[in-house]
C-alpha cells in the first residue's frame, strides 16, 4: 500500500475524512484489494462503536412527526399529483417534511403581504382609471356645453337679425305653410326689397331622425335652387338666415324637403313646406 494514502485508512473507517480525501481514498480503494480487505475487517469496529453510546429516548414528538410524514408520503404515492387538490399541492410545496412551521408561516405571511400589496396597487390603478374616465367624460360634457353655447349664440344672432329685419322699415313678410305631409308646419319669411338676404322663422316641423335633414329650396319657375340644409329643435322650431344669388323676392316660391344628411342637388324626399312668395301675402 502507498505510505501516505494508507494513513487515511483508519479515518475512512471512522467516517471523518474530508470530502476531497474521501473521494481520493475511494478511488484508491478501487485499485487496492489489500486496503479493501482492511476496511472490510474494520467494519466489525464500526458496527460495534455505536453501542458504546447509552440508549436515550428521543423526544415524544419525533415519532409523531415521523409517522405523519410517512402517512403523507403513503397518500402521495397513492394519489397521482394531478389528482391532488390545489391547496394540498400548495401545502406540500411549502410545508417541510420535518413539520417546522416557521418557514411556511413566513412564506404564507409574505404571500399575504404580496397579495395585499397587489390588491392595493390594482385598486389604485382602477381608481386612477376611473378618475381618467371621469375627466374624459367631463371634458366631453364641457365640449358639448361649449357647442350648445355656440349654437345658442348663433341662434341669438339669428334672432337679433330677424328682429332687426322685422323692425326695419319696408321689410316684406311672407307667410309659410306646411303641405299635407306636415300641415302643422308654418313660418314667416322676412326680406328687404331687392335684398339677397332674408330671415326665415319656422315652427311645427317634425324633428327628423339621425341621417336626415330638411333642405330649403328657392324656386323660380320649375327650377329649384338649393338654399341650405337645417334641422329643427325638439319643439320643431328653426330660425334661418338666407343668402341667395339674386333678390329673394324675385323667386316664385319657397319649399322645404326631407333629404339625406348633406343635402341633395334636387328635391328627392317628401316636400313638407311649399309656399308661393306672393307680394300680396
Amino acid at each position: 500500500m502507498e505510505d501516505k494514502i494508507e494513513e487515511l485508512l483508519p479515518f475512512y473507517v471512522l467516517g471523518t475524512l474530508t470530502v476531497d480525501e474521501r473521494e481520493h481514498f475511494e478511488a484508491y480503494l478501487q485499485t487496492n484489494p489489500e486496503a479493501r480487505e482492511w476496511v472490510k475487517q474494520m467494519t466489525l469496529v464500526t458496527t460495534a462503536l455505536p453501542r458504546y453510546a447509552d440508549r436515550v429516548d428521543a423526544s415524544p414528538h419525533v415519532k409523531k412527526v415521523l409517522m405523519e410524514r410517512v402517512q403523507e408520503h403513503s397518500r402521495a404515492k397513492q394519489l397521482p399529483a394531478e389528482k391532488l387538490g390545489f391547496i394540498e399541492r400548495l401545502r406540500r410545496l411549502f410545508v417541510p417534511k420535518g413539520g417546522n412551521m416557521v418557514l411556511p408561516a413566513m412564506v404564507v405571511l409574505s404571500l399575504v403581504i404580496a397579495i395585499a400589496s397587489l390588491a392595493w396597487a390594482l385598486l389604485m390603478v382602477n381608481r386612477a382609471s376611473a378618475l381618467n374616465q371621469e375627466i374624459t367624460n367631463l371634458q366631453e360634457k364641457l365640449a358639448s356645453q361649449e357647442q350648445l353655447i355656440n349654437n345658442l349664440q348663433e341662434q341669438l344672432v339669428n334672432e337679433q337679425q330677424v328682429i332687426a329685419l322685422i323692425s326695419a322699415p319696408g321689410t316684406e313678410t311672407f307667410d309659410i305653410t306646411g303641405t299635407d305631409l306636415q300641415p302643422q308646419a308654418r313660418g314667416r319669411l322676412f326680406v328687404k326689397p331687392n335684398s339677397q338676404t332674408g330671415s326665415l322663422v319656422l315652427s311645427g316641423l317634425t324633428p327628423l331622425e339621425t341621417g336626415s335633414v330638411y333642405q330649403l329650396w328657392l324656386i323660380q319657375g320649375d327650377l329649384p335652387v338649393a338654399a341650405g340644409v337645417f334641422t329643427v329643435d325638439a319643439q320643431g322650431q328653426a330660425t334661418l338666415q338666407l343668402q341667395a344669388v339674386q333678390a329673394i323676392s324675385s323667386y316664385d316660391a319657397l319649399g322645404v324637403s326631407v333629404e339625406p344628411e348633406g343635402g341633395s342637388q334636387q328635391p328627392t324626399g317628401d316636400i313638407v313646406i311649399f309656399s308661393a312668395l306672393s307680394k300680396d301675402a
Partner: protein
Amino acid sequence: MIRADLSDEQLMRLIATRDGTALEYLYERYSASVMGLAMKMLGNRAEADEVVQETFWRVWSKTDSYRADRGTLLSWIFGIAHNLCIDMIRQQKVKLLNIQETQIVNFANHGMNEAASIRDAVEREQVQSAMDDLPSEQREVIEMAFFKGLTRQEIAKATGVPLGTVHTRARLGLQKLRTALQARGFEQD
C-alpha cells in the same frame, strides 16, 4: 400483525411494501439506540431528535438502498445516523465541544423481544469492555474521530501531538479494538 418476534429482515420487507406500522415498530426497537449515538456525537437534544427523525425517514424512503448481504439492519441504520451527525458537525450546526445535556438513559428495550434485548445488553457490555481496555490515547483518538467527527488534522491540533502520531494511534486503536471485540465474542453482523 406486527409482533416483537418479527426479525429485522421481516420488518424491512414489510416496510418495503409501505407498511407504516412496521416502521413504527422498527422505530420502537432502535430509536433509543440511534438517539443515544446522536446525543453522544452532538450533545444537543434538539439536533439529536432531528437526526433520529431523518434517519428513520431515510429507512422508510430509501428502503431499496439497504443490502442485507452487507450487514445487519441496525448497522445500516447506525451508518445513516452517523453520517447525518457528521454532516451536522461539518455544517457547524453544533459546536465541536458540546456541553453534554442531561440524558435519560433508556433501560427498557421497547420493540425487542427478550432474546434481542439480552443480546443488545451483552453487545453493549462487550463494546464497553473492549473500549475500556484500549490505551487511553488510542481510545481518545477513536472517540474524537467517530463520536465528535473531528478530522485527523483537528485531532492533532486538539491533542497537541503530531499528525503522524494521530495516524498511528488511530490505526493501532482500531486494530486492538477489533481484536478485543473478537476476543469477547462480539460477532460481525
